[in-house]
């Protein structure tokens, strides 16, 4: 394992030290592993928190700041944070208008946030709503299973709903917008390589040089199946087709995220984005806004995922609103 780390057990704590040093706009509670805005938002506004295992940087800590999250709880690599962290963050960020929990649909995250909600309710009477993202079309949707994973749409949701909270929408409005965004997003990912979890010390899966994993999430879980490694134009189809098959994106404007998994350089992501936009154009999808880069990663995995979000004028307006975080910044 070749990584710029010390003891694998210290990766999270030590990387949070770097985050704190790098970003004066953030305040890190090292004991509780919570990243806050240095300046809390004004009283009376809904606060947003999210959280999840580390290894997906810049998600979530990199999306804390004006226009986006109020706090992010960090877990160990690929391990959901714990209810007490979340409860602590919830009470700290509440400005009297309630708190939205943004949860990616993983059993661990869902259960821990559930217990955090119970704690917060029992404790301080903070009003908590929860949105669970579940946009990964690689996973079959069924009430008998854990359902779909939450992946790329989480980034877009944090931005859009963060803007709504910032402009003073109330908890009901914020929560229902969050649900609407979550419902309108779909994602699909592929991997060229596995990632290596520091504490495991070796790649989570072995993948021959001429194969890719299709339908991977962001935790190094193997995908749904393997396919031969082909060119970018065919791989683009493997991202675009299942997303379009699952949801109609021709009815209005779309926000697209072509996301790198952490080990794929920008030159390849741009090339893939060129392929993806051609396919979307032929399919009659109008991409009104886009992001290309590493936004929700899987440690050092090489690969990419595509997220499409059905938008409307209101969503685009919120998308364009100012945001000032380490990971996304414009208009401010």
């Amino acid at each position: 394992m070749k990584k710029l780390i010390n003891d694998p057990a210290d990766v999270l704590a030590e990387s949070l030290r770097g985050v704190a040093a790098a970003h004066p706009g953030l305040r890190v509670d090292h004991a509780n592993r919570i990243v806050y805005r240095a300046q809390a938002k004004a009283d009376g506004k809904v606060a947003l928190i999210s959280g999840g295992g580390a290894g997906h940087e810049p998600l979530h800590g990199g999306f804390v700041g004006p226009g986006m999250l109020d706090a992010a709880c960090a877990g160990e690599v690929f391990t959901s944070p714990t209810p007490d962290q979340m409860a602590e963050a919830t009470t700290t960020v509440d400005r009297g208008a309630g708190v939205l929990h943004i949860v990616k649909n993983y059993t661990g995250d869902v259960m821990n946030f559930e217990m955090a909600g119970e704690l917060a309710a029992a404790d301080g009477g903070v009003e908590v709503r929860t949105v669970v993202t579940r946009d990964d079309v690689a996973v079959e949707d069924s009430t008998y299973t854990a359902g779909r994973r939450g992946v790329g749409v989480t980034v877009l949701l944090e931005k859009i709903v963060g803007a709504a909270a910032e402009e003073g929408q109330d908890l009901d409005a914020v929560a229902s917008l969050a649900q609407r965004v979550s419902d309108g997003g779909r994602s699909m990912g592929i991997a060229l390589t596995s990632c290596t979890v520091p504490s495991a010390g070796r790649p989570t899966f072995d993948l021959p040089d001429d194969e890719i994993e299709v339908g991977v999430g962001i935790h190094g879980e193997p995908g749904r199946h393997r396919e031969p490694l082909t060119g970018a134009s065919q791989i683009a189809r493997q991202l675009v087709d299942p997303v379009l098959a699952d949801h109609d994106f021709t009815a209005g404007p779309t926000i697209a995220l072509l996301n790198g998994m952490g080990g794929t350089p920008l030159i390849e992501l741009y090339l893939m984005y060129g392929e993806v936009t051609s396919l979307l154009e032929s399919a009659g999808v109008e991409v009104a806004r886009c992001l290309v880069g590493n936004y929700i990663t899987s440690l050092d995995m090489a690969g990419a995922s595509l997220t499409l979000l059905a938008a409307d004028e209101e969503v685009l307006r919120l998308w364009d609103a100012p945001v000032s975080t380490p990971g996304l910044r414009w208009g401010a």
Partner: protein
Amino acid sequence: MADSLTHEQLVAWLAAFRDSVHEHRDHLTELDAAIGDADHGTNLTRGMDAVMAVVAADDAPDTAAGLLKAVGMKLVSTVGGASGPLYGTFFLRAAGAAGDASTLDAGAVLGMLRAGVEGLAARGKAELGDKTMVDALAPAVEALADAVANGADLATGLRAAAEAAATGREATTGLEARKGRASYLGERSKGHTDPGAASATMLVEALADAVG
């Protein structure tokens, strides 16, 4: 003939589980790498190390219920992931069932385990056959119940429970996962043993060892 669980045995159980988790840490992580995210061994090691620090502390609770509750809280606050709330809930519910007894007879142990496993399954919305820790734990409880019903002593009952857990664990190999991370793999989850079923079996075995 061991017919009840003393406070020392409770502590010995936890210590034995911690030791077993340490010993099989890499194995658990490998099982998790195959159908999950390669952290189960690390998660439980971190959690049980924290638990044993609580248990060893001067102010460790001296009732069964108190100790079990402290263990559950510690697991919830240090493990994270899926296994943190699940094992945490197991111990919290077990604590609730233990009441204020300081020594637990076979029936009380059964009640405690059953409450724990039911709580865990409810937390995870998991049923038998979903390829989770429930597939080791539920059969273990039934085996203990049978043994107790047939008048076996606690040690014998727990040995049967441990065997049932191991059998349940082995059975997960052939299953397609419906809960947890492994469910994302669909068909591809078949042919791999569930890591949580493996650690849950270690938990029951540790109890059998502590009592036997």
